[in-house]
């Protein structure tokens, strides 16, 4: 086990169980063992690990990796859908789409904040994203070519995200689990909106129906890849399951998703582009065709259709916004506000304090839109 830093030892005092044993006369090595035992017991008992609790370095690192990747996915994921805001074909759809993209920004905010409880800053995480040292979900490296892609993303991509994320609401790390509870509620709105968009197209003109089928054809396989590599090839799965960061294997979740989607596709009057897809009575699940993992690996390596474009837009927005963030920081120094949280980073204090509150109570257009 990696050495416990002094800082983490101090933090460990917050957990009652850790304190009782760590404070004993065993010396550092003994304290280590005791802290590890307390952590293991807490995880085994399905207790939540909180930011001030002692935790193994590898657990912390694994969470940072996963939460940062998740946060990055939310903000990169805004791009393919924002691509259609200016062309949304009705004002109602425009409101729904704008609200959805806004939600994804909000998810990014929650997740960066949750990850910050592990001792990394949003700034640091963004720098790593921009440098290509932290990932985001590969699904967003595919282009949105038609309006129906907005529906396919809602139905399939948000749908796959929910399947992945609902178990995360019981993740062993408290701040992550709590963020996921909020996020999952909104993701299920997104999924229903996407489904309803496709349903409308499916019942529309021949041109609209063709558009919907084409979008589903293009998004189906990448959506299945969102669950990650098969279990026998997944690098982080086993350890994450032991830590109860993850509760189900990639293949289990993928199967669950396929089983959910098949009847929904039928109801939409759309086909899924897999000739091997059929119900298996014996297994009580749908069998489906082989996934092209070479494509998955290529997209992961940066060779997908939009990797370069997404990262370039992200970097550009960040670089072009630098003078704005600098101005806000400089203004905050000149005019310190007494009510400001002392520990809030500069980029948080830039925004008027009413904004997030406004976003949450922003029911009029959103409520109409999500109904």
């Amino acid at each position: 086990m990696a050495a416990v830093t002094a800082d983490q030892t101090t933090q460990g005092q917050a957990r009652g169980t850790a304190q009782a044993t760590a404070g004993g006369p065993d010396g550092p090595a003994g304290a280590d063992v005791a802290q590890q035992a307390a952590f293991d017991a807490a995880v085994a008992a399905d207790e939540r690990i909180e930011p001030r609790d002692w935790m193994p370095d590898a657990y912390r690192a694994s969470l940072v990796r996963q939460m940062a990747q998740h946060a990055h996915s939310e903000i990169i994921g805004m791009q393919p859908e924002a691509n259609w805001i200016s062309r949304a074909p009705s004002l109602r759809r425009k409101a729904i789409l704008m609200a959805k993209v806004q939600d994804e920004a909000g998810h990014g905010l929650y997740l960066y904040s949750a990850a910050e409880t592990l001792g990394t800053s949003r700034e640091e995480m963004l720098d790593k994203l921009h440098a290509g040292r932290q990932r985001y979900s590969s699904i967003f490296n595919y282009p949105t070519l038609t309006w129906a892609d907005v529906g396919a993303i809602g139905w399939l991509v948000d749908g796959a995200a929910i399947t992945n994320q609902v178990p995360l609401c019981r993740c062993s790390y408290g701040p992550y689990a709590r963020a996921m509870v909020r996020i999952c509620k909104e993701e299920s709105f997104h999924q229903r909106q996407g489904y309803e968009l496709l349903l409308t197209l499916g019942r529309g003109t021949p041109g609209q129906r063709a558009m919907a089928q084409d979008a589903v054809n293009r998004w189906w396989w990448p959506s299945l890849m969102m669950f990650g590599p098969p279990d026998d090839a997944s690098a982080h799965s086993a350890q994450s399951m032991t830590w109860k960061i993850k509760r189900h294997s990639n293949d289990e979740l993928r199967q669950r998703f396929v089983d959910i989607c098949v009847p929904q596709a039928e109801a939409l009057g759309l086909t899924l582009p897999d000739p091997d897809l059929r119900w298996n009575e014996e297994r009580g699940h749908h069998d489906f065709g082989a996934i092209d993992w070479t494509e998955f690996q290529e997209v992961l390596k940066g060779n997908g259709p939009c990797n370069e474009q997404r990262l370039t837009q992200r970097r550009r927005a960040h670089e072009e916004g630098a003078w704005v963030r600098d101005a806000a920081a400089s203004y905050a120094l000149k005019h310190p506000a007494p009510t400001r949280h002392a520990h809030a980073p500069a980029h948080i204090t830039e925004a008027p304090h009413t904004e997030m509150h406004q976003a949450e109570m922003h029911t009029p257009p959103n409520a109409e839109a999500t109904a």
Partner: protein
Amino acid sequence: MTAALALGDDALVLSHRLGEWAGHAPVLEEEVALANIALDLLGQARVLLSLAGDEDELAFLREERAFRNVQLVEQPNGDFAHTIARQLYFSVYQRGLYEQLAAGGGDFAGLAAKAVKEVAYHQDHATHWTLRLGDGTEESHQRMQRGVDALWRFTGELFQPVEGVEIDWPSLHTDWLATVTGVLQQATLTVPTGPGSGAWTAGAGRQGIHTEPFGRMLAEMQHLHRSHPGASW
């Protein structure tokens, strides 16, 4: 209904412009804030256009010359300071307008009473950012001043009386000037003057004369809807 179209088009067009920021904002909080404002405006636009007819027909099937928005709201986003200057000018105007409409008890009183709360937040947002950028760094100060100066010529049009909007237009103008001047001065910015007599000023948006960027904006906004005549979405 001229008045509903004028006010509805203002909200629709500005909402569209703000929507163009999605995925490009300088900080994540502003992704949320700008989308928030865009959604408020779109909500207002939908109510107003529905008073005048079918909201989608009006938004997607009118020609450029039939739009009645002021030219200020159709101006491209520019940099963040430029967008904030546009927000400041428009939100102070819209707040004054809606406050009078809400108090007046006419056709728009109900809508205005609800919208004025949203617009108060828009003004707050624009004011805070004008202060931060004006009184931030040397660079932000210069950029903010450029935005304030460039858009100033589009503000005169805001106070041309709109038929069917029964308010005290001169006092709307006086109040607007006092508020905007106060914010700009506090932000250490120079309050623009003029334009000098004989200089071109904007002012025919309400009559359906728009600026070049508006045609492109509409082309993008209307293209999909127009490509599938009669389809529902």
